[in-house]
């Protein structure tokens, strides 16, 4: 099995390099790269599955002529669990990308793009299996850089360059915190090996607490915790859609992996860690979905939804920590289980949604929702899969999004009565309910404005369905969403070794604790079936009733207005207006409105623009302050040699007077 794993990595990287070499010369670069990656990913899935099912841990280790470095890797249940979405989404996105990038074959060097894609996949895989601090940091940074180059694929656009810069800055700053964290751990443990860290089980509050904070900041920047999320809404829209799917679906999860892995170094967790994560989760979840609701740009909206889902994951982890800290293993298992399961689920449906957005962009050339509409008639596949993805991301039964949220709900309700856990669990209940309903609002908006109704522009009216190479991945991911939901009761069993590692209890114990949700999940599956069955019955009934009866075709009820036009449909901004208004304190949307004047108004316009409040209120002032300070030192290099020599003299005198 191990050989399969390394073989797959070699295959992915090899095909990437091959397409890099082919790069400038032939369109084959755009075939070799993706298909190599696809096959490699299929290969890689096998060992991951094997580890999860059989529970055998694979590990490799080799000496590395590098200070504090060691080439040690291990695939345990946790790593394997993260490997699955990585290989899954990377594979299908690669397939998708080969078609998506076809239009650039003549204009751009796709070899480089595919090289970085494969580098990204490989580095992600290595991140989750690395067992040494230096190795981890190296592959972590390679991952960031590769994704940076993928994001700036269309670097002719100023906006893309700006986004790339923001992403690079954010990820680098995050990495700095991680450096400090690992060095600190190494200082205590005397080595950078994860085994050593786990053996140490740092429990003195003086170390564990700060290290946890560092991890939350460092990994949170990658994962997109608010307020470290500013790069997501910039980078995801800028990147090509298959890359956005990969980054948003999988790459940001490596941040979650890092956080969870760090938790295995620190034990026992203190309760305030849980509180912190629950707080972060609530903030990210609610504010993330609110900002999503306010967007007009489809991919930007999806990016904010990644923030929201990361928030839900954080809620799960937070509850898990509280459970561990307060010795309520059931809560721990449910919390961690839900959080981790949501990682997989989000990878599936967010990948699906970004691919869908990509094929819309590919077909119409715009991400502006208010320029679209009525695509369901011209793009049935994309629309159907996108609808499935929307149901899933809203966490509605019978799809997979609901399953992981169900874990967290049950956990929260379970401990509601317990004095030491009731406040966060109540917060989780309220927060999740709001997140869920807001998500429904947001995705009915997307679905309604983009795919339903009448096309608002020529581009939308003449859109074409994308071909099989782009359809198959979406269908595959949609099926994945269904499968996870349907297989939920069995998946619980598989989760237990994964959760066990995090919660610090034996797998058997986890299995027993998860019994509480086993039977409900079966019922949920039944209810899902019942639902589908019911809809089918009713549909048939309807057909029967209408059989032989007159079925008229008419225009939509226009309230008697003579000349309705497609522009009169409810737009994304008008749909979201009531909620935006309700939460304007947070969103601070800027509206520019020139009202229609006199009897026959020539022109009238209304623009609403919601930019990230954290970027505007925190980061930009900070950067400007630094820049002002920098400018205030500019006189030093003012050009006169006399002054320069004076510096020397002054330095000398100061040192002498100080020294003697």
């Amino acid at each position, binding site marked *: 099995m191990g050989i399969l794993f390394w073989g797959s990595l070699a295959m992915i990287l090899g095909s990437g390099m091959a397409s890099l070499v082919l790069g400038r010369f032939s369109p084959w670069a755009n075939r070799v790269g993706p298909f190599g990656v696809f096959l490699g990913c299929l290969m890689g899935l096998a060992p991951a599955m094997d580890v999860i099912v059989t529970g055998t841990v694979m590990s490799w280790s080799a000496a590395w002529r590098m*200070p504090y470095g060691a080439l040690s890797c291990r695939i345990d249940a946790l790593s394997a669990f993260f490997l699955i979405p990585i290989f899954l989404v990377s594979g299908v996105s690669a397939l998708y990308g080969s078609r998506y990038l076809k239009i650039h074959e003549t204009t751009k060097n796709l070899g480089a793009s595919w090289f970085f894609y494969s580098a990204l996949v490989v580095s992600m895989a290595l991140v989750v299996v690395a067992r040494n601090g230096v190795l981890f940091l*190296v592959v972590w940074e390679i991952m960031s*850089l590769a994704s940076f180059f993928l994001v*700036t694929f269309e*670097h002719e656009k100023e906006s893309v360059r700006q986004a790339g810069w923001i992403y690079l*800055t954010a990820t680098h700053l995050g990495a700095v915190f991680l450096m400090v964290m690992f060095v600190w751990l190494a200082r205590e443990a005397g080595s950078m090996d994860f085994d050593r860290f786990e053996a140490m089980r740092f429990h003195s509050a003086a170390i564990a607490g700060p290290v946890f904070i560092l991890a939350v900041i460092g990994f949170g920047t990658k994962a997109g915790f608010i307020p470290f999320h500013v790069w997501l809404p910039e980078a995801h829209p800028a990147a090509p859609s298959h890359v956005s799917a990969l980054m948003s679906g999988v790459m940001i999860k490596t941040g979650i992996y890092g956080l969870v892995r760090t938790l295995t170094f620190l034990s026992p967790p203190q309760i305030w860690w849980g509180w912190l994560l629950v707080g972060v989760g609530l903030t990210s979840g609610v504010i993330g979905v609110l900002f999503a609701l306010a967007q007009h740009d489809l991919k930007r909206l999806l990016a904010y939804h990644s923030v929201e889902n990361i928030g839900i994951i954080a809620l799960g982890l937070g509850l898990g920590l509280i459970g561990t800290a307060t010795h309520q293993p059931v809560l721990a298992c449910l919390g961690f289980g839900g959080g981790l399961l949501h990682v997989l689920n989000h990878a599936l449906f967010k990948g699906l949604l970004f691919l869908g957005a990509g094929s819309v962009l590919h077909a119409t050339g715009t991400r502006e929702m208010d320029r679209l509409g009525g695509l369901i008639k011209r793009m049935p596949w994309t629309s159907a899969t996108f609808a499935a993805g929307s149901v899933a991301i809203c966490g509605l039964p019978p799809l997979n999004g609901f399953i992981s949220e169900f874990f967290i709900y049950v956990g929260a309700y379970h401990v509601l009565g317990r004095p030491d856990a009731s406040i966060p669990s109540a917060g989780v209940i309220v927060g999740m309910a709001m997140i869920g309903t807001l998500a429904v609002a947001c995705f009915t908006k997307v679905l309604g404005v983009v795919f339903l109704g009448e096309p608002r522009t020529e581009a939308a009216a003449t859109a074409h369905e994308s071909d099989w190479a782009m359809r198959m991945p979406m269908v595959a991911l949609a099926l994945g969403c269904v499968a996870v939901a349907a297989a939920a009761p069995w998946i619980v069993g598989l989760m237990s070794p994964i959760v066990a590692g995090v919660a610090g209890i034996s797998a058997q114990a986890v299995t027993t604790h998860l019994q509480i949700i086993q039977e409900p999940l079966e019922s949920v599956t039944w209810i899902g079936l019942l639902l589908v069955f019911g809809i089918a019955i009713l549909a048939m009934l309807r057909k029967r009733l209408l059989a032989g009866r007159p079925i008229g075709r008419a225009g939509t009820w226009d309230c008697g207005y003579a000349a309705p036009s497609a522009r009169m449909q409810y737009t994304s901004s008008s749909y979201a207006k009531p909620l935006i208004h309700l939460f304007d304190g947070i969103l601070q949307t800027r509206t520019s409105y020139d009202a229609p004047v006199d009897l026959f108004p020539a022109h009238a316009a209304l623009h609403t623009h919601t930019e990230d409040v954290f970027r505007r209120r925190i980061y930009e002032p900070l950067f400007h302050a630094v820049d002002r300070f920098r400018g205030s030192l500019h006189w030093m290099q003012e050009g006169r040699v006399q002054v320069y020599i004076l510096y020397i003299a002054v330095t000398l005198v100061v040192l002498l007077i100080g020294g003697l």
Partner: protein
Amino acid sequence: MIFLLIGVPVLAGIVAFFIRPGWMPRLLLLAVAVTHAGLTVSVWMVQPAPVLDGWLLLDAPGQLFLSITSLLFLMVSIYAVGYLAREDWGSRQDFKEGLLFTNARESVFVCCLLLFLGTMTLVTVSQHFGLLWVAVEATTLVSAPLIYFHRHVRSLEATWKYIMICSVGIALALLGNFFLAVAATFNGQEHIPMLLENLMDNASALHAPWLKSAFIFMLVGYGTKMGLAPLHTWLPDAHSESPSLVSALLSGALLNCAFLAVLRIYQVCAAAGMDAYGRSLLVGFGLFSMLIAATFIVRQIDFKRMLAYSSVEHMGILSLGVGLGAGGVYGAMLHAVNHSLTKAMLFLAAGNIIAVYRSKSTREIRGVFSVLPMTGVLWVGGFLAITGSPPFGLFVSELLILKAALDQGRWGVAIAYLALLSVIFIGMAAIFCRMAQGHASGLPAAGATPRGFKTTLFNEPLLSVLPPLALGVLTLVLGLYIPEGLHRILELAAAAVGGF
């Protein structure tokens, strides 16, 4: 052996002065570079015997810096062959003020290059402080004409500042030498010879206050040459106005030599038990240099000046590493190696960019990727390397220095260090990415591109792409794997400077 190392370049230089321009001097340059590199390699094989009763001797730090210098010089001279071939020797228009200017005579240029190599070699091998001083001052004098290769007003100004500032600084170092001599004189009569080992052997006998002031004077003096802020002022001007290959040598080799001189006196102080004081000074200078570098790197409008300031930054990191001691010294040594390779690579790539764009402005130049693919890759790769991103070598050394700081629980230092590194990264990211990406713009009017450069794919002259590429590959390798031999030398050097 050591005589050969010094003598070959010097003699060749004198010869080069008299042969007429053309392929002859270039060939000579290349030949000497190869020979010198060969000699250096042989030094790694067999430890050369000390000569002049221990005045010239190759210890671990010397060997390390000698190797860097020799390697860099080899790469630079390969680059120089193509460069000198491309240069047109008539008078041409300067792209900034548009004034006419000519180049210095090629033979003079080559001569000075060779002498430069010779004097730098002398710095690395000289164990006697007086001789060390002579050598360092000599490097200043022979490198001045190199900076004034393009004979236009700005390079002239740069040269003047370089000479004035460095000479004043070095003069202070001379006084430091005399103080050391006084310190080495006990009870009026017998004098300890000013050889490193003798001084270190009976360091306890040295007269403390005099030694201390000697250290201050030498630190300021050689620090001026090394480019520690606020003594660095000559550095951006000289680096930005000299030809790129000279900048590569200045930044990659010369600064290291000055650093070596600082290390020497620090060794003596440490042996005399004043290391605490010395280290505090080094840490202070280091952080301040990083601050100044950050100040001027962000929003820098001239990318060669930016590279120069980044050299200030890295010199600061070096002295910080040594000042932190312990593992930091090993880190500093490794950092010196990586920095030299990376910075030389960047300067050479910058040379290619200037050759095509005829501009050094970070505001105008765009789309290097599309105009010069290979150079573009080198440029961005160099940026990642110089800012210490994995998998490049500088990441490892910076991590080691950070670890040294944290291991001693010096949180203030660590935080300042990281904050400045981050600011510099952000500033550089903005500049490099804007230059490399986007549509090609900022190019001069058609036909202005020099001979040898056709701005189409894969038509960059091999001689000007291969050397930086080789350097880049080297630092990449050092980021993933440190060879056994290098590791040993680094450890020895670190041990010599009181670390591990």
